[in-house]
């Protein structure tokens, strides 16, 4: 398929006797942002390294743009791939600009592209300062700039927002969104799940080396079928239980005027219609979908 940027077919990785990746098949489409989540040791980093051709798969096939991730052809392809490893530490002796120029030389792109990139990630004023004086957030920004060298068409970002302050995180995703709009394909891991929840098209959940679930956030929610939470405030809180008679609720807690109900997705609309019968006595209703953390923990449990 021409539109498949990454294709994994039945990929295994053994470290000696230990099975780190257990038969993963996965396709990432052009222009897609895929979130890769899983506990530590779930196989995320191993999968990342295999997709980058840093370690060979024990079995199975990995292709990027139709090219197997080894040999001379893939070497050329590397120029179009950006990678930001987790917790990378750059060379203290070099300035930010020199660091970028070093990687630009390796990637075969012009040094002139370095300063604009530093501007893009908000490091222009620190360009000529040595990296050992950089804060953690600045190093992370430098790493991001490095990943963007040579106008990549595919980005691998491993925990990219570690060490960034909220503003930095916002700016980071802003840049990412711009690039995404230009057709860039992104694979991203993050442990702050609520952060990538709204920013990825699909999620791949890894558990013990297996691809445990794959889909949009909505699909995963439905698949796991975690209860929704409905909070309402009503002067007629005592009436709520009566109004919901015959509807399967998971839990119902009344605290003064506040009522918290949890229910499964299929009964949501029926339940809301019943609540509507309470009429003007209802002051407020909030429907809370299970968060990605809930979905993720549901899978991981």
């Amino acid at each position, binding site marked *: 398929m021409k539109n498949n940027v990454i294709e994994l077919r039945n990929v295994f990785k053994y470290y000696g006797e230990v099975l780190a990746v257990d038969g993963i098949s996965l396709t990432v489409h052009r222009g897609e942002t895929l979130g890769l989540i899983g506990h530590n040791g779930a196989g995320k980093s191993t999968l990342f*390294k295999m997709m*980058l*051709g*840093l*370690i060979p798969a024990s079995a199975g096939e990995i292709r990027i743009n139709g090219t197997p991730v080894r040999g*001379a052809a893939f*070497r*050329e392809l*590397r*120029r179009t*791939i950006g*990678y930001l*490893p*987790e*917790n*990378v*530490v*750059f*060379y203290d*002796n*070099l300035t930010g600009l020199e660091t970028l120029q*070093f*990687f630009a*030389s*390796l*990637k*075969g792109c012009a040094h002139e592209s370095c300063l604009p990139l530093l501007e893009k990630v908000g490091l222009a004023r620190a360009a000529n300062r040595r990296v050992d004086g950089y804060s953690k957030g600045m190093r992370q920004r430098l790493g991001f700039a*490095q990943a963007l060298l040579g106008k990549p068409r595919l980005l*691998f970002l491993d925990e990219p927002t570690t060490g960034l302050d909220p503003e930095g995180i916002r700016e980071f995703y802003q840049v990412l969104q711009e690039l995404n709009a230009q057709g860039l394909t992104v694979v991203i891991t993050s442990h702050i799940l609520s952060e990538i929840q709204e920013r990825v098209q699909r999620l791949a959940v890894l558990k013990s080396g297996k691809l445990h679930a794959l889909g949009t956030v909505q699909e995963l929610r439905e698949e796991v079928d975690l209860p929704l939470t409905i909070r309402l405030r009503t002067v007629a809180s005592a009436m709520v239980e009566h109004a919901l008679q015959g509807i399967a609720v998971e839990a119902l807690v009344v605290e003064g005027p506040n009522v918290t109900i949890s229910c499964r997705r299929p009964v949501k609309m029926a339940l809301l219609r019943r609540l509507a019968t309470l009429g003007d006595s209802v002051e407020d209703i909030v429907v809370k979908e299970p968060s990605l953390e809930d979905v993720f923990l549901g899978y991981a449990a």
Partner: protein
Amino acid sequence: MIELAQIRVVAAKEFRDRIRNRWVIAVSVIFTLFALAIAYFGAAQQGEVGFRSIEVTIASLVSLVIYLIPLIALILGYDAIVGERERGSLDLLLSMPITRLELLLGKFSGLSAALACATLAGFGLAGLLLAGRIDSGALYHYLGFMLSAILLGMVFLSLAVMVSVMAKDRARASGAAIAVWFLFVLVYDLGLLGALVLSGGGFGEDLFPLLLLLNPADIFRILNIFSMEDLKVFYGLATVFPASLSNPWLLGSMMVAWIVMPLTVALWRFK
């Protein structure tokens, strides 16, 4: 296909690093000071002070350099790869369009250039200061000494890179580097000496010279001492080392082999 441009990029960065953190200048100064001190005070134990002859100076320098250069080279190179691995930058480097071979060669050449620069500058300056007192023939020996010192440094740099590839972390790498130094600079010769004494000189004749060739530090010694007639006799080397094996080209080739072998092992183990 090896891309020389990639090797050059890595080498240039390594070299610039050592210039910038003043490693090259510091080591140059150490070499100059030692060389001058040895030239003037090398004969002090014979009750003389002052410059005597280039032969004696080189002989003393050889003894010094055999300890010093391997140590400096090992310290310079032991974290070349394992350091990148610990920083997390190795994966990043290897995600670039560069092969492991190019990365290794780049690291090795950059560090070699720094060490060669320090050696040339340090001993070269000392040589210039002594130039007025020595004739052109002796100058030739001194040049040979500097060249072989660079080769010796590259051998131990190559060993250091091998250690750096194979070690799990920097601490282990530094331990292994020190072990390599002890082995080649101290233990090996003592072991040979012990074997000679125990066997009553029995296995000497044929095997002993070949065993000397298995130690790059000994090759360096032979290369420098053997080139000068006076010293050869003075050191008693002529009696144990056959002239057929003392061809400088052969010895030089052995040194080059000692550079290539550890690098080859390093590449093989670099996964």
